[in-house]
């Protein structure tokens, strides 16, 4: 295909990233680098890291953190994608109402929300009382102070982050492409899987990225709604920063989290072809 006249040299466009990069470099990366460097201090340069490897508890916590984040992402995708579809297909008024409802959790302070869940989910709370009264269950369900509670709390908080990017991408899709596929004989399921879904993939991937990443750093929800098995890495980091003042160790834990997360991105990129996220050129 003939290259069209570019509207601005690609070099010049690349420079547009400069303000943001400088901003982050000075105010974020330089300070972060200092903290990471600090993690190499102590009784030996690798002392903090050896501590992490030596004690299986830390690796257990890291693994649990990833598991809970992946689970949250999957659940959010399963609920969020159809919900986004409904939003885009709704009338303008319906869309506005749905978007407002999705934004409502955002305006509620996180601690207050967690407290609300604690009240709703506990064995003597609203849900269990209702189910018991209806005779659906015999004994109260353990819905809180365990992984179920953590997932419920986290999904509720993360859903908007999943829904919005998907809606943004879906609203830019040319619906006629699906109609064209149908008119060529494709079944509804086929046209969805092979035409619609791939077109919305960037939104889904963006939402998954957001949810997964934010979940990794969460500690309020696991602390309030979780049980002893649900200790997440950010709680441990917070403990070392605010209770024992062991900043070297906290820095080491953070670095491990960073490296592991970036590693997951690279793997996902290779397996799921997330090149679309990194802005592969469309032509």
């Amino acid at each position, binding site marked *: 295909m003939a290259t069209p*006249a570019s*509207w601005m040299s*690609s070099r010049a*466009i690349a*420079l*547009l*990233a400069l*303000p*943001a*990069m400088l901003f*982050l470099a000075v*105010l974020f990366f*330089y*300070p*972060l680098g*200092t*903290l990471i460097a600090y993690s190499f201090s102590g009784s030996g340069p690798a002392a903090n890291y050896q501590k992490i490897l030596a004690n299986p508890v830390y690796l257990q916590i890291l693994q649990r953190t990833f598991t809970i984040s992946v689970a949250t992402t999957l659940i959010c995708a399963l609920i969020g994608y*159809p919900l986004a579809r409904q939003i*885009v297909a709704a009338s*303008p008024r319906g869309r506005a109402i*749905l*978007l*407002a409802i*999705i*934004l409502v*959790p955002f*305006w*509620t*302070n996180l*601690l*207050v*929300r*967690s*407290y*609300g*869940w604690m*009240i709703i989910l506990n064995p003597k709370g609203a849900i269990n009382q209702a189910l018991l009264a209806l005779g659906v269950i015999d004994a109260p369900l353990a819905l809180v102070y365990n992984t179920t509670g953590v997932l419920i709390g986290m999904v509720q908080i993360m859903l908007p982050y999943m829904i*919005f*990017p998907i809606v*943004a991408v879906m609203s*830019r*899709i040319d619906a006629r492409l699906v109609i064209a596929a149908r008119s060529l004989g494709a079944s509804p399921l086929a046209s969805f899987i092979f035409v619609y879904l791939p077109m919305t993939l*960037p*939104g889904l991937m*963006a939402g998954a990225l*957001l949810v997964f*990443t934010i979940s*990794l*750093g969460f500690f309020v929800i696991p602390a309030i709604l979780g049980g002893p098995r649900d200790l997440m890495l950010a709680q441990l*980091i*917070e403990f070392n*920063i605010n209770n024992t003042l062991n*900043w070297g160790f*906290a820095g080491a834990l*953070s670095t491990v989290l*960073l490296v592991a997360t970036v590693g997951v991105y690279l793997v996902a*990129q290779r397996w799921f072809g997330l090149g679309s*996220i*990194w*802005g592969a050129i469309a032509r």
Partner: protein
Amino acid sequence: MRRGWAGRLAGAIFVSSACVFLILPTLIVVPMSFTSAEQLIFPPVGFSLRWYVNYATTNAWRLATLNSVLTATGSMVLATVLGTLAALAISRGRLPFRGGITTLFLFPMIVPSIVTAVAIYNTFAKLHLTDSVAGMILAHTILGLPFVVINVLAVLQKMDWRIVDAARSCGATPTRALFLVTLPAIMPGVLAGAVFAFVTSFDEVVVALFLSGTSAMTLPVQMWNGIRFEINPTVAAVSVILIVFATAVFAAITTLRRGTP
């Protein structure tokens, strides 16, 4: 696509359940804000507006609200501008290590906020940016940037660049093409990013706690202080006020923007 009534009913049930799920804990908080007790307990005791009055009349709460609004607006604007430009550069510019640079922009989101808070405190203190709204805006811009970049990048994938070429070949300057053609095309992504940046700042407590002082307290910090010892019901009242206000603003914007998706 036409679906049978069963499909539509299932769809409706699904959407309503999801909506209930999303607002349930908030709904619980509403009656609790009217409690006359000194603590946030459930079920609420008595009925009183004293916590709303407390919010409206206490100087600390009013100042915190003003600070939060200023900080969130400022950081939203800054993050959206910087982030959109960066996303454009990543998507269309000739950047080396494009994947790496994109990942770098995501770091503020990956690093737990407590670590960010501790890390940037020293730098901000040396630059005299602690205990000031300006410093808070800059700090929250850091946190909001990844959201803008991700959302704008996602929409840029779907962008048909030929319309820009068409505009240029009709004689538009690069800048006009940017503002009149590109930006409207990617607007849903920009708006999504802006909303996230705003909300992230408005609800952010960890970094704000570190950077706040006697003068630059934000609403979440004020709420958090009201929660440490026992949960002050004013916090619940503030939540209700925020929801009502935000919904009203949202309704106003949507009615004004009739016609645009």
